[in-house]
């Protein structure tokens, strides 16, 4: 079994895991970080998106071993302590979630979209979220939330 060391939400994690262990299985099963959700098996739905070295990655399509030596951020590690991340606040303020299952992946993808484009527009958001499926909201409130969250991130110098 390969030995893996990585950082998850700023904390070091190391251990030996079966080679076929997916990153989402490591996070959910071994580390009990169940905010990362699995909604499909063909890397279409995006519920499992986490940030790996800042990039949005579908954790169902990455082996835990591939995350060796890297920094992983999950939804549980996005907020700084008690204070919510501006993207989390924006999702609540704009009713951008209903059942909440796709939400962690949506928020993390959105954070990466905002950081990757200081001039993020609505069309960029709609295109940028193509890899994240939501069946409840009809997406428009998500787009509104991401625009507001990105603005707040820019104001806080997080972009």
């Amino acid at each position: 079994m390969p030995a893996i060391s990585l950082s998850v939400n700023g904390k070091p994690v190391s251990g030996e895991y079966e080679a076929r262990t997916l990153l989402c299985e490591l996070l959910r099963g071994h580390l009990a970080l169940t905010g990362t959700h699995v909604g499909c098996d063909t890397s279409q739905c995006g519920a499992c998106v986490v940030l790996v070295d800042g990039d949005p990655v579908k954790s169902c399509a990455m082996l835990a071993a591939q995350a060796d030596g890297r920094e992983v951020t999950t939804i549980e590690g996005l907020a700084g302590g008690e204070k919510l991340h501006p993207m989390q606040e924006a999702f609540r303020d704009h009713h951008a979630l209903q059942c909440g299952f796709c939400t962690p992946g949506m928020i993390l993808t959105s954070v990466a979209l905002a950081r990757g484009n200081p001039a993020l527009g609505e069309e960029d958001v709609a295109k940028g979220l193509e890899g994240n499926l939501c069946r409840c909201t009809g997406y428009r409130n998500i787009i509104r939330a991401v625009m507001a969250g990105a603005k707040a991130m820019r104001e806080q110098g997080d972009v």
Partner: protein
Amino acid sequence: MEKYGIGQPVRRKEDARFITGAGTFVDDITRENLAHAFVLRSPYAHADIGRIDTSEAMAMPGVLAIITGADWIAEGFAPMPTKSAVQTKIDGSKLNQPPRHPLAIGRARYVGEPVAFIVAETRAQARDAGEAVEVDYEEREAVTDPAKAIAPGAPRIWDDIEGNFCLDFELGDRQATDKAFEDAGHVVTLELRNQRVTAVPIEPRGAIAEYDSATGRYKLHNATQNVHANRAAFAGVLNISPDELHHIAPDVGGGFGAKNSGYPEPPLLLHAAKKLGRPVKWINDRNESFQSDTHGRAQDSKVELALDEDGKFLALRTATIGDIGAYCWTIGPFTPTAGSARTQGGPYYFPAMYYTSRAVFTNTMPLDPYRGAGRPEASFQIERVVELAARKLGIDPVELRAKNLMPADSLPRKTPMGLDVDSGDFPKVFGRTLEMSDRAGYAQRVEASRERGLRRGFAIAPYLECTGGSPKEFAGVKFAKDGTLTLSVGSQSTGMGHETSMPQILAATLGLDIAKISYVQADTQATPIGGGHGGSRNLEVGGSAVVTAANEIIGKAKQIAAHLLNSSAEDMSFADGAFADVKTDQSVSIEDVIAASLEQARLPGDMEPGCLDTGAIFEREVISCPNGCHAAEVEVDPETGAVQVVGYWVVDDFGTIINPLLAEGQVMGGIAQGLGQALLEEIIYDPESGQLVTGSLMDYALPRADDLPAMEMEFFEDAPTAKNPLGVKGAGEAGCCGAPPAIVNAVLDALAGDGVTHIEMPLTPQKIWRAIAEAKT
């Protein structure tokens, strides 16, 4: 203190856990000594099952148990129940209902039907062992098309059911309708399909079963929409009393009808948990979900509209073949029969209507309600035939609709389908939708599209639907010494925000701080009854139960207030969270009355601490009629057939709006699913082999963020219903009723100049491109 009233856009309480990853979905739950199950499913649409050899699989690492159909039958368990409200054929005889067990018994009848249930130490081990189970299948000819299934010579799915026929159904006045057609100035006929789709909640189905040998009781955490009805169903299968099963739905990641049914996996899990003495978990993967989640729609209809010389509607006649799959499932026969009949004709004034249908078995995954369950089908049928009639008669489709809407002064009215339409103003809602859609600027927009090589089209689609689901609901309120209270309701949110809207109603009625109210749902120990989720029923019956409970609390609290103020209950008024003596003007706050209700010393002698705790049941007598109007503008690229919805306007009459933020969310979500049905989604089985062609998210197209237009919406609140104390009509399914006809008719309007008059849903680029090409030749 946060005080919120009815009608305010209160932000959701439940979001705090969902945006931080702290929600608890069923796969997030774990247990000591947890075992994992895998369902081995039939790879054939129709096959006899011979010997099942489990010896090699049983010997594999970690394997704990394997259950086959023969093992299951040997336990003496009962079949799963069917609870369709329609139980008889037109001739009065009972519907044909084959037995349905959790595992295929001797024969598999659809791809994905469970054949064996494997339990192992890990999910991977269970899955690996599934591959080592040897099943002798002898393939039979399959039939997946309902029209072929009832044609002579079709393969028989059930040996004792002739013609794969479940039941037939009729509603309305056949003679009056036929007469109207004979006398009509114009008759317009359209054959159309509401294609088979599936709900695809992003959280797959799953459950964990536990058995306590000391008490003999079972516990089931299940991603379901309906804990009480399914507890009864599973207990019935296992020959136990419902009291022996504690059924809980944790956070559920969407349902839309597909998590309502009595599915096969939970009884298998419960049995395995008892047999092994260990908790057992099962989670469907997405590919299995396409095979084994119930499907929806799947109706082929012939719709006929009779009009007089001036374009007034005289009669509507609809004949439907409803595909219900290989079994009756939970309420499969209901949707293509009564479920689709009630709202025939939509919001139009029809002197006569006749609806008839046949429900038919095929070698496919069975059908059960999907968001709307019959009403979207009916709405699509009427709106498509009206659009075609306008074109054939050379009348503006807006004008033809406007002149045939039920006038406001014709309400209350019972339609020829027996639907009690008590309130609304359809012409006003229609007119307002037209206003919002900026018809004045339309010609210019058409020209701008044309300059870019695109066709622009517009359509308006008024709709009338109705609520459904269990008519009874319970609400319970318990007060604690720290000033907090718990509200428990038997309806269930799978994303709709009841944790906010229901406390909002209670807080508004009692004048309390919403932050003090915690909410409990979906637990058979928390409420004595519960109708779960379905039929846009929550506010109508659940919300009304909360109001009923709150009014009982106010009644009891008046006695306490009177005691505290040395007055009499008859002299107590209640407003803005305070009780006042109408004679002396002395008053006491509800918080103080609640505090007093928990101390014997401050209570009248005949009352005891905890006396304000209340449980109330509301039962609706007549279903409500949500209605409204959608309008869509689309651009079609004739070179590629690609459609973009570029404008969308909605006015909905849901009666009183409790929380506009949540109501808008329901409308937008419904439109997205309606857009999916109109343009993208279809469950396809190969007609020869019966294999599921659209078995993954790579084959089945869900709407994505860039498919949805900005939507402008308003609510019409001037005609609340008197059928319930809140005046609400239901909001959850309306979007699915309005969107498919608005979008499809707008596309066909864009292609009118090309001579295209009809394309079956979904209107994919390929179909549109072909239709344009074929119209040219």
